[in-house]
């Protein structure tokens, strides 16, 4: 595992990179609370397909989102090797199911390339930029855009 280490200069930020099938994504480390192994979730009735259910996180009820399904890819088939990224989004905490956490990146804004024009709405919605690191392509996603504030949407 190689680290694209840069000096922590002004404007640099740390990201957590993770894998879903053969693609790599990353999110800001500041929104990640913890990373834990997969445990069987209790399914919720009438929930969208990407909501896998809820688990008990030290006494709190934590919804688990299949990020693969949410990003429009095929539904995940969780195994013991899958991990849950517990992330804070505004006032709520959710668990994101991903295949594996691959890297912690420290980057500056110059590393981020703009997202190319694509037709898909979904990609335009969540993608905030693309990183090229060690010949890999890592897509930076914005969690808040994936799960918009329900209250404001309804009102």
């Amino acid at each position, binding site marked *: 595992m190689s680290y694209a280490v840069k000096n922590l200069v002004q404007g640099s930020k740390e990201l957590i990179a993770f894998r879903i099938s053969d693609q790599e994504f990353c999110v800001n480390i500041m929104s990640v609370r913890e990373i834990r192994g997969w445990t*069987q*979730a*209790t*399914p*919720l*009735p*009438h*929930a*969208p397909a990407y*909501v896998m*259910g*809820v*688990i*008990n996180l030290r*006494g*709190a*009820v*934590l*919804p688990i989102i299949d990020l693969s399904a949410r990003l429009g890819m095929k539904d995940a088939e969780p195994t013991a090797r899958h991990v849950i990224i517990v992330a804070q989004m505004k006032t*709520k*905490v*959710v668990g994101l199911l991903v295949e594996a956490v691959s890297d912690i990146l420290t980057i500056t804004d110059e590393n981020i390339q703009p997202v190319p024009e694509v037709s898909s709405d979904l990609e335009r919605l969540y993608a905030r930029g693309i990183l090229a690191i060690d010949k890999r392509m890592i897509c930076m996603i914005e969690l808040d855009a994936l*799960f*918009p504030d*329900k209250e404001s*949407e*309804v*009102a």
Partner: protein
Amino acid sequence: MDMNEIKEIFFQECEEQLAELESGLLKLNDGDRDPETVNAVFRAVHSIKGGAGAFGLDDLVSFAHVFETTLDCVRSNKLEPTPDVLKVMLKSADVLADLVSASRDGGGVDESRSRSLVKELEALAHGELPSSSGHDAPKPAAKAAPAPAPAAKAELPKPSDDSGFQPIPFSFDGFGEDEEPAIEGSLYEVSFKPRRELYSKGNEAALLLRDLSRLGEMSINCDTDALPALDKMDPEASYFSWKISIKTTKSEDDIRAVFEFAEWDCDLEVKLAEEAVSNEELPMVPVPFDLSILDDVSAGEEETASERGVSEETVAAALSAAETASNVSRAARVAEKKESAAATAAAQNNAAAAAAGAGQTIRVDLDRVDRLINLVGELVINQAMLSQSVVENDATGTSAVNMGLEELQQLTREIQDSVMAIRAQPVKPVFQRMSRIVREVADMVGKSIRLVTEGENTEVDKTVIDKIAEPLTHMIRNAVDHGIESPEKREAAGKDPEGTIKLTAKHRSGRILIELADDGAGINRERVRQKAIDNDIIAADANLSDDEIDNLIFMAGFSTADKISDISGRGVGMDVVKRSIQALGGRISISSRPGYGSTFTMSLPLTLAVLDGMVVTVAGQTLVVPLTAIVETLQPEASAIHSFGANQRLISIRNSFCPLVDVGRVLNYRATQANPVEGVALLVESEGGGQRALMVDAIQGQRQVVIKSLEANYTHVPGIAAATILGDGRVALILDVDAVVAASRGQSMKPEMSLAATG
């Protein structure tokens, strides 16, 4: 304890007094003419005034004083408490509440409003009642009293009363030295006859007299004529009266101020004596006595008691009375450090007297209770986990561990119940707040509306109480503004011009049911429908039942008022009300009859922390069904199942037919209906009335579960009330029986589904 803490106590007491005041006034409004009610109202205002005086809250004092004066007229039957008078009084109570909160939190009060009320009150006191001037005389504000210290130290029940012996005029050695030099001034004659209430409130005649003596040179006559024989005597009664001549430079008001806190428990007369009348000409022989000895109260009591050789019983009675009094004063001790302790002490005495009847209470910080409740919640989960793992590892099931666990379970249970009881509070305070809102809003829109409340003593968890206030306020505003018609319209429709809003609380199947009914025009379905079409909430050709139309008002962005008024229609609609009720795990529904009014029914859980549930399996999932909803469970037989129409099935139970609801189907756990014969039917009674048989696959057992919110991190799930964590550490969902029943009845869960889909 510093001044701020004392002040905080005062404000807390103000809240209680204000509640007392308002409920008293409302009782009067309902035609209660019990003098005790009037007295309670008067005392409440008086206590606030007294305390406010001690803290120099002048605005509060002056308003309370005017209010008190008017109330005094009612108390002395000089002013008839007609509805009009009470209307002014209720408004004054509101202003008083505003002044109290303004004093506490800073901020202003509507000056013009309080000024106009002061005028109205004064008009009531003076205009209709010229003779009331005498009652104005006891000057406002404890600050006017030079040294109103007596009540604070009123530890001594009047010995002469309790011992019941023929009192002997006595003097003490120190008398001569203490005599003040003769002062220039006028001579007043004061006649002072305490009633028994004076003593029962912990006041002490001797201490009042001592304070009076500080005003100037005085001589006292004690009239003992009323004293009965020892065997006929009531040890708690008051038999003495005093005639006092006092020579002082102070005014009559100052003399009255000494009796400020006892004035309604005694007959007091103060008049300017002719200079010519000398002490010797009084019918009784004046026996001066030095009251300073009473400063050492307990010693004084022992001394006087033994001196008189009273019987043992009476000593005991006196001592126990002294104990009670000193308990009262212990509560008041806080106040002693203050410059003018008397005021608050009087308030404390009143509060303590009231508390004596209602059992003792303590004030506890809510955070502490919450922490305890959280801990108990974790304890319950832990206990469940422990029993489960013991059961799993112990095949025989007879070990001592099992016995111990059972006891532990019982104890946990009791702890939990007790902790929950701490938090249970009557809904009364919230209901009282509503009556104020009704008054104010009705005033603003020029309607005349009566709020009738029922079941105010229904108890529910504090968090529930706190959270229903806001939606309830909103609904009350709506009911007053939109629900009830204007008096003219009402008269035209042949109704009483005065509208009625009825607010009811009751317990029903482990939940609290709050109903808000108005006798207004009801929902204008045509307009609601039109509005919904205009706002793209429904399609123009949608075919809706009356019920469905009524329920449209809970949709977002809906306001039927033609014009946006100041009171409601601020863009916050019933959808917000519905959402906040749902967030509490409650439901709201409306039923309306055109021309007869609408009724909103809210059903809320009694507590937000735990519930008793039946753990069941449905399509491989573990669910918890609230035990309170279940009437009975049964194993259906094939012969009892009857198909009804295309895909409805009924089950016959003792010759009545009840629709079968497949929980797995409603919750979308399975695509086809399960075979009822393989499962278990839970007969439930739903809020909408009527029974349903819920089909589940198997019953696992009964358990108390700790409620965990799903909304905290997710969103409301239709058919699911909340979640919980079971003994194996996994999350189980708690079934919302009423929602499942409603869904089976064909009412769509769609609106919520679209909400959930965004999550």
